[in-house]
């Protein structure tokens, strides 16, 4: 089962292209994503960042006509292989969305539900507490666990969504612009949280905020439409964040990170 496993990396893409019908939204991406690191995906809007991210846990399965070519490996297993169960994939690769989307249930239930459907048999109260602690939300909500999640602020809701994801104990957490709908203080807390989480998880985050990428990530993938006139996005440069921001190889990356883009 674990043949071919490259312990250092948790995700590897090989010539991955993603199509909506005949439209190739993302073309020929090959990269290695390191374990227990934060990898940021940056780039102008519409270049396929979300598309790429959502292909990693097969959320794109729900988009009719969306399909991929190439390979997407998680610890050696091709996630698009014919014998792979997409539900298992999503269980192992959690996701936090752009807009906080808690369930219209109590705070407690928001976390317990995912654990329950995934067959969790341990102490639920303990799991809820630990998840909330890991998401740095426990202190704020420990007395109101029975309240509706909708009564929390936007930033709290987003941390609840993170807690909910942690509770199912995934290997990888995907985040699609998790702070873009939040105020600066909430954003800061989420960023701090990421630093905490990467001790245990591999994190891939999409952001259009350069500073954020620079602050939180270890690696950065720079995406662009691959050429003038084309509408396909691709990763034009992928390396350590430091390098991307201080010494980019690609001229377009340099223009973009220094704000000369567009």
């Amino acid at each position, binding site marked *: 089962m674990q043949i071919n496993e490259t312990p250092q990396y948790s995700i590897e893409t090989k010539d991955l292209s993603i199509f909506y019908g005949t439209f190739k939204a993302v073309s020929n991406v090959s990269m290695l994503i390191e374990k227990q690191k934060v990898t940021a995906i940056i780039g102008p809007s519409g270049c396929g960042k979300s598309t790429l991210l959502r292909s990693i846990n097969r*959320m794109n399965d*729900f988009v*009719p006509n969306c399909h991929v070519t190439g390979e997407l490996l998680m610890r050696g297993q091709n996630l698009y292989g014919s014998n792979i169960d997409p*539900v298992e994939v*999503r*269980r192992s690769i959690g996701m936090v*969305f752009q807009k906080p*989307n*808690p369930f219209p249930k109590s705070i407690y239930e928001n976390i317990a539900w995912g654990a329950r*459907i995934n067959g969790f048999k341990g102490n639920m109260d303990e799991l809820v507490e630990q998840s909330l602690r890991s998401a740095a939300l426990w202190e704020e909500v420990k007395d109101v666990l029975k309240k509706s999640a909708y009564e929390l602020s936007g930033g709290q809701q987003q941390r609840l969504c993170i807690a909910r994801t942690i509770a199912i104990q995934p290997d990888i957490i995907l985040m699609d612009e998790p702070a873009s709908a939040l105020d600066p203080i909430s954003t800061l807390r989420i960023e701090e949280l990421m630093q905490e989480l990467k001790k245990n998880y591999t994190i891939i985050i999409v952001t259009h905020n350069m500073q954020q990428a620079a602050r939180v990530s270890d690696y950065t993938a720079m995406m662009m439409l691959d050429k003038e006139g084309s509408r396909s996005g691709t990763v034009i440069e992928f390396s350590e964040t430091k390098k991307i921001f201080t010494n980019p190889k690609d001229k377009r990356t340099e223009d973009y990170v220094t704000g000369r883009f567009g």
Partner: protein
Amino acid sequence: MNPTDNHYPEGQSFRNSLNSRYRVASIWQALFFSALLIAMLSLAALLYNVVDGAFGYVAYEYKNDPAEFSAKPLDDLNKQELLDILKANLSDGAYNKLNNEQAMEKRSKSDLYTLVLERLIQIDTKQTWSMTASIFDANEVKAEAAKKYPEAKLEFRSWLTPIFLTTPMSSKAEFAGVRTAILGSLWMVGIAILFALPIGTGAAIYLQEYATKNFLNRIIQTNINNLAGVPSIVYGMLGLAIFVRALEPFTSGSIFGITDSNGRTILSAGLTMGILVLPLIIINGQEAIKAVPDSLRQAAYGIGATRWQTIWHHVLPNALPGILTGSILAVSRAIGETAPLIVVGASTFISLDPEGPFSKFTALPIQIYQWTTRAQTEFHSIAASAIIVLLVLLLTLNAAAVIIRNRVQRKY
């Protein structure tokens, strides 16, 4: 044309033409509004017409003089005396039949009083007057009654009474009630919903959550929209051919050992009505499911929920108020539908409460239809009363739907 040439009216003359444009506009606006006024007036006329029929003066005669049965005035008799009169004057067969339906000793005094009136004295209604005439032209009504029917008693009557609700059918308008009809309607609607709600919701879930955009699913969707527009009487014909006739052994209950019935049962009517409201339930269900935001589904999928887990735990609970509202609307539709029931053979005269799905039955709108099409005006009066009962029932249902809709405020 030289751009500096001015062919437009200027100043005062422009203002005049503008004013006349405004005048035309306001006339039309008034005309548009009058359409709504007509709608309002029609509604008012309809309601008034119904109420007008349900109350008013009645001129009636006794076929047999009460004095033949009792020396005392009937109103002063106690229960035992009434019972004795019935025993003495009814044939043994008739008395035993009544006794079998409900033990005579156990009946209330007013029941017995009604029986004496209905069976022995026998009321003969000569004429009824509308509520309006009875109130505003009371003297003329009295004069007319005195002239035409010198023997008759004149009485202001409300045809809609609590007794009307709890009495079974009778061939005499004065003694008829809607008890059997209401029970028949409830049974029928119950079966219809039991059949259509699970299937309709299932179909709505399939179409919204599973169906891809392929040919088959497009056909299903178009077909459902079309079924919603098929005339109800065609559903009646379908029910007649399939439930009443082809499936008679099942719908009559004969495979369950019930022998005295044919396929024209509550079950046939309920299933027919279920098929009739099915498209309505599906379309409403689809709307309700569509209103559940996608972010909720994504959240569930994102933590490894399967499709059904997502639907069952998140989509359905959030769509539930909408689905409920939709089924209440379906119930309202089923309660008011008449034509399919005529076709599948609702009986028009049933005085026994329906006992189960294999009973013959009548329904509220069937009674209204029957009574409306009778020539005697006293039947129009009970038709009007039955309409009031039906409308109140529908109003209650719709109020319930509104309350459900408002109770569950949208959270997202």
